[in-house]
């Protein structure tokens, strides 16, 4: 299994480069595009590991929805062109500490699960059908809990964004 390993290293290097550019670029929209590359790389790694449904769901949800939301946010607030100031602050040490801790946690979990094995488990790829069966039998409770989490997030988003000055509440919906 040399091919997938080479592919992994190429993807990983591209992701690492895009990740560094993501935090160093001075342009918010460019940062969002670098984020897109990082997420696409994650999807590609899922594909390499045989998780086809997960990989494309990653593309659909993260690239197709969440980065679009970022871009919307950027455009709705300050659609500046070229470099923008104020993208940097003096908390680099804190950020670096957090990054190292996150890395250690992930690396520890990986090491515990797989050890030093570099085998890629392509032949054990999961079909959607198997995924559906497991989701509906072993993982019913988390599945239903997800819907609650989404419900909460929706209500939170609306509550944050709606206008609730007294005058507006009086004739809600009339002036929009």
């Amino acid at each position: 299994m040399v091919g997938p390993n080479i592919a992994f290293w190429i993807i990983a290097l591209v992701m690492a480069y895009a990740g560094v550019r993501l935090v160093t670029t001075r342009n918010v929209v460019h940062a969002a595009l670098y984020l897109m590359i990082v997420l696409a790389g994650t999807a590609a790694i899922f594909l390499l590991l045989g998780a086809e449904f997960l990989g494309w769901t990653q593309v659909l949800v993260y690239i197709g929805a969440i980065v679009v939301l970022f871009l919307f946010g950027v455009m709705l607030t300050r659609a500046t062109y070229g470099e923008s100031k104020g993208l940097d602050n003096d908390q680099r040490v804190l950020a670096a500490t957090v990054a190292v801790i996150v890395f250690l946690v992930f690396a520890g979990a990986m090491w515990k699960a797989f050890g030093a094995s570099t085998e890629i488990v392509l032949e054990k790829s999961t079909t959607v059908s198997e995924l559906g069966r497991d989701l509906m039998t072993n993982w019913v409770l988390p599945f239903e809990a997800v819907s609650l989490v989404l419900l909460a997030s929706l209500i939170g988003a609306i509550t944050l964004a709606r206008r609730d000055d007294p005058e507006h509440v009086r004739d809600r919906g009339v002036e929009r």
Partner: protein
Amino acid sequence: MQLGDYLPIAVMGLLALIFGGASYVLSGLLAPRKPTPEKLQPYECGIVPEYEPPQRFPVQFYLIAVIFIAFDIEVIFMYPWAVRMRDLGMFGFALMGSFMVMLIVPLIYIIREGVLDWAPRRRHSRDELIARYRAEHEAAAREEAA
């Protein structure tokens, strides 16, 4: 699944990119290149543009994107379920029914909150307006007759 399945797709993508790139190159060879300061200005119906950078947008667009994410994730969860629906039977229906309640309730809440109302809501219904117009018309006619 085999990764090789994606090879012909990559060929297709490459063809599209080559076609696009070739068109760019061809246009670069064929097209004239005479930029003037006026030509390079942003479009503004033929006059000199004034308001730059662009103004802010209504927050509703952002809300649409937030709502879209949540609903998109819910719909994605439905796909593995839909594939297995025939085996799951009534249990599957009940499971997805309770899941969908979590989609329907916020949708109703969103509509009630007016998040999806883009235009000014009509203060009077069409029938009301017709009735009022008719009443005025009849009153005027009576006045005239008197």
